[in-house]
């Protein structure tokens, strides 16, 4: 009930008394104090801590509030009548608050909303950059809570702590009360004030947490130690024994070695065949149906955080911003973080220049090592407010309904499902030979392998983007490992060990396929190095790992993650043997290939490789990229590139394990339709600059 002229407004003390939040004695004491020392009765009552702030404002909300937010915006001329009508309609549909919708539409700035809110609640609106909070009232251990919930203790006035908040609701006030642990009252500020201020004072804190949290809390999962002393000792013993065996029984030793390699490659092939068959089940194309998406009540959708780590990607920023605006999800429930490196002035300037809507928040990650994407994401986690979260890359074009599908998939899935991986594919598939290969490989990986891993309960190495997390689980896992250059793969395996399930869904994000071989080698060497890191991390205690994953999970990990690494490393060796034999016709190798070994290698060479080529064809066929299919024949050359990248990755693992080999984006001459979630083009549609 708002105050109206002619009506006598009930007194605050009486209202609190009638709701039995204070006693008559306390009211008398407060009135005495007001008489003697001045001040407002509400502040006095709050400062004594007789009543919690949340309860105080719940009872007195109508007492303080002036008008409706929409009316105030209209009254101030910040929105038009038409916009007002549209907002009301959207509010019905989305079920979110007026202020959030206005911000998401970009019609009013965050600062202006702060002013209106302040007026609405009858509180001061503070610009934290001009009137900075008193650092003495800030508890640095609570910085994460401040940033995740957008409030910050401001100053103490008249014995009462004032807390700057961006929004006012009972849950937030209760949380603030629990956090500050003393009586407080609130004032209004804008969310960017809170974010910028917290970043300015908390850079060290957030960076420290982003870099060291996992290593401190769960060191057994941190790749900061590339190889443990125990692993080194094992390697030493293994190599020593191998040397001894080779010295005494050289022929037998090499036969066993070649037999082992051949057998490994054969099983690796077998696993991939099984995965293709299982993953080809049509049920995986209907994890979430269009009908389910259409039937979704948008009012029930949770707030969704979208992490957008970028580095020197100013050129792609407008496109991804447009892609996110086009997403079929209530914009007011989006919490988009542009995670930019502090030294990346170019992208920061571009982001400012774009004057993005209030749902976009720019986070500047301080310049410290390791300079990796997971570190940047960990940093941003402290500022995320979503119940769910996902990551996109700068050049991504997710299908518009992807977030909704993720919500449905979570609702349909088991309780222990922690993350859902969307499919990745490329919009510039037909640009050149490399993009064709890459597209088929990704189609095979995401359309066949990952669904099968899901079905078989084998740990899923998450893709770099479009993985949708439950935020609470992500925080429980201490985020990503900043030392692991394929932090996504590592996180997928960690989640399974913690008893969580990693799922997949039938929504695709289109990315830019690498169209340059040097750039591709950089990217792939990082991926394979990261796989090696992940393999080493999780194989530190293989028995415990086996127990946690079970038979299928453990061996699936060995052959899927391990198989990817080892097959890339071993392929050139076997190919070299073969090439020398083929070109020279030497019989020198004959003793190394007794019948059984010969048959297995022949099987691998012809049937297995033949079918692996065929799997590439299938991937194109399933995606209806028919024109890619004939190109699959050339995939052995792609495997060679993979081996090159694997050796480069291995070299880096030894010499520069945490170095994040940056992949340059924006090299393609192809464009993507962000409105529809970029389907691939068969020809260039636009020229994009931005090659780095």
């Amino acid at each position: 009930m708002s105050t109206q002229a002619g009506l006598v407004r009930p007194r605050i003390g009486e209202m609190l008394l009638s709701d039995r939040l204070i006693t008559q004695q306390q009211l008398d004491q407060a009135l005495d104090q007001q008489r003697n020392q001045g001040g407002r009765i509400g502040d006095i009552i709050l400062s004594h801590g007789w009543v919690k702030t949340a309860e105080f404002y719940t009872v007195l909300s109508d007492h303080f509030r002036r008008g409706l937010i929409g009316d105030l915006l209209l009254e101030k001329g910040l929105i038009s009548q038409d916009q007002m009508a549209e907002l009301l309609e959207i509010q019905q549909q989305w079920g979110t608050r007026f202020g959030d919708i206005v911000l998401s539409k970009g019609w009013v700035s965050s600062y202006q909303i702060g002013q209106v809110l302040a007026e609405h609640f009858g509180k001061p609106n503070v610009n934290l950059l001009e009137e900075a909070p008193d650092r003495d009232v800030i508890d640095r251990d609570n910085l994460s809570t401040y940033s995740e919930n957008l409030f910050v203790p401001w100053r103490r006035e008249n014995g009462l702590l004032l807390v700057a908040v961006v929004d006012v609701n009972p849950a937030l006030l209760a949380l603030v009360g629990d956090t500050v642990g003393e009586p407080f009252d609130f004032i209004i500020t804008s969310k960017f004030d809170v974010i910028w201020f917290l970043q300015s004072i908390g850079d060290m804190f957030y960076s420290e947490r982003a870099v060291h949290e996992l290593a401190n809390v769960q060191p057994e999962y941190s790749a900061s130690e590339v190889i443990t002393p125990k692993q080194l000792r094992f390697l030493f013993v293994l190599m020593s024994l191998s040397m001894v065996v080779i010295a005494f029984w050289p022929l037998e030793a090499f036969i066993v070695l070649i037999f082992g390699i051949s057998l490994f490659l054969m099983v690796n092939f077998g696993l991939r065949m099984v995965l293709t068959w299982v993953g080809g089940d049509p049920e995986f194309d209907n994890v979430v149906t269009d009908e389910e998406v259409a039937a979704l009540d948008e009012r029930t959708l949770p707030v969704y955080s979208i992490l957008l780590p970028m580095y020197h990607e100013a050129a792609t920023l407008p496109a991804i911003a447009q892609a996110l605006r086009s997403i079929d999800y209530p914009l007011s429930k989006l919490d988009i973080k542009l995670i930019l490196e502090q030294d990346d002035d170019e992208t920061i300037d571009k982001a400012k220049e774009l004057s993005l809507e209030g749902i976009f928040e720019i986070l500047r990650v301080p310049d410290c090592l390791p300079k990796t994407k997971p570190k940047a994401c960990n940093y941003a986690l402290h500022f995320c407010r979503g119940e769910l979260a996902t990551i996109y890359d700068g050049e991504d074009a997710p299908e518009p309904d992807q977030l909704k599908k993720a919500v449905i998939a979570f609702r349909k899935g088991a309780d222990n499902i922690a993350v859902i991986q969307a499919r990745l594919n490329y919009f510039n598939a037909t640009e050149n030979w490399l993009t064709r290969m890459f597209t088929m490989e990704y189609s095979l990986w995401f359309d066949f392998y990952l669904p099968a891993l899901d079905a078989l309960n084998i740990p899923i190495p998450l893709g770099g983007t479009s993985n949708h997390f439950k935020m609470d689980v992500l925080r429980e896992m201490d985020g990503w490992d900043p030392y692991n250059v394929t932090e996504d793969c590592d996180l997928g395996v960690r989640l399974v060990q913690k008893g969580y399930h990693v799922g997949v869904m039938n929504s695709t994000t289109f990315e830019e396929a690498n169209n340059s071989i040097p750039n591709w080698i950089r990217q792939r060497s990082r991926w394979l190095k990261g796989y090696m890191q992940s393999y080493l991390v999780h194989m530190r205690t293989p028995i415990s790992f086996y127990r946690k994953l079970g038979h299928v999970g453990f061996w699936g990990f060995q052959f899927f993650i391990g198989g990817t690494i080892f097959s890339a490393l071993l392929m050139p060796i076997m190919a070299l043997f073969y090439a020398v034999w083929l070109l020279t016709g030497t019989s020198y190798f004959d003793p190394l290939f007794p019948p059984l070994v010969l048959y297995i290698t022949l099987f691998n060479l012809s049937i297995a490789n033949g079918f692996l080529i065929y799997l590439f064809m299938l991937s194109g066929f399933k995606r209806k990229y028919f024109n890619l299919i004939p190109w699959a024949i050339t995939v052995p050359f792609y495997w060679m590139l993979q081996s090159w990248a694997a050796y480069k990755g291995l070299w880096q693992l030894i010499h520069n394990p945490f170095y994040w080999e940056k992949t340059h984006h924006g090299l393609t001459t192809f464009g993507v339709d962000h409105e529809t979630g970029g389907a691939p083009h068969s020809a260039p549609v636009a020229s994009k600059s931005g090659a780095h």
Partner: protein
Amino acid sequence: MNSANTSRVHTQSWSFAHHQGTWLLIFLTMMLVGLTIWVLSNGFFLESAMQSWSIVISALGSEDVLLENLTMLTPHLPLYLLIPFYFIPGLDTGAAPYLVSILATSLLLWMWARDLKDVDITQTRLAIVALLIVLHPAFLWAATSGGHISLTMITFYLLYRSAQHIITVHDIHSYISMAVVFVVFFFIDGTAVYIFVALIPLIVLIAPIRAIMISPMSLYLIIGTPFAFAVGTWAYMNWIFEGSFSFFITNADSDFLGGMLSIAQYPWLQDYGGEFFQPFLVATGYLLIAYPVSIYLLLDTIDDNHRFRATFVLMLHPLIAIGIATSQHYLTHPFEILTLVSAGLMAELTYVKMQTRREFILLVIFMMVSIVGGWWLFIETANPQMTRWYKAIQGENTSVAIVEDADYQLGKWLNTHRMPTIIYERTAYRAIVARGDAEGLLLSYSHGFKSAMRQRIPDVEQIVVSDPDTLAGKRDRVNIRHPHLYSHGMSGYKLVYDKLGWRVYRKIHA
């Protein structure tokens, strides 16, 4: 509560039906076992079964057990299936191919019964239909003759099921299935090449129109690439082990040549070899006589576009394959491919409506007519082996008198005179089977044989040589290397065996 009860009742009913199906399967298998024992006891044997068994025991009995000893001249998968039986005591007389044939037939029946669950018919009707399938001469011949036709029928059944799936649901599994089935097919039977080629023009009837319009090439690549890899792999293995990529299609002994080099022995090739349309038309007539039920299915499905296409392909595909295989002088008898229609029919029945009394009776009538027509055609067109088979079924003793069986006599003699012996296994395969194993024999792929063939006077204990005036004798490598050995003997060797076209020379020790 109610739904739980319903569910339990359903489960029990299915379980009951399931057990009934199992009993039916056991009954049919036992019936086939009994029939096989009956025909074998009446002296029937299949040359190719004996040859396969001979290859297996030769390879496993040689000094080095090597894959290449199975030779590159015959598809390997049936041989692999025979290998485990080599180690089972009591099967050394050559019964293993017949056992494998029956097991494969049982597997086919089991798969069929499983797939029939989608068709809601009673167990009695299932039993009747199953019996009518089994009693068709093509099926019985495949199941009890000991050849690998039963394996071929399994692959054709799966192939046809894949085709049906592509027509109806066209999911990725159906394409993979079809491609993999073709690969397996190639390693079972040389006719796979013709079956594959015959399907190429029919893919337009199977695949979704949209896919055909957009990219027909992709369809062919998806279905055909693994098959091409299989053929390529085989050629490559020929190069590795025999020194020539085309060894398996140039060697006179190769099964992949079919009847190409022995046209004179096969009336079918004499009449129609090298032509396509004439054998196609004749085979169409054969199909109408032996499988009039396919006409019924065609008419029955005329209102259902998907099923009609499947039935039409079932009818046309084997006929085209017969035409092509005959044009290439491969096919020695139309039943080699026509038999597969039984498997296709089984697959088709998993989709047929036969719930109403009228539908079922019509189907049964046409199947019964098919059996009658099939038997008539089988008897009328039978080659000598088929003739011996149906005579054996009738109880006639078809065996050659032991004393007149040259190979058997040689085999038994070699069994009692065990010492290192040079023998060309492709000529003497029946003798090797009669001997029971190949231990101590120096076969053409062995180091001892090759070494002996390089010498003017071989240094081995015994040499077996066949009459060079016979067709088989002309191909005997011992004769090719020592053309006068049979007639004149060899210095340092004495004749120790001379019976019915076989001679054995033994080294004279000083």
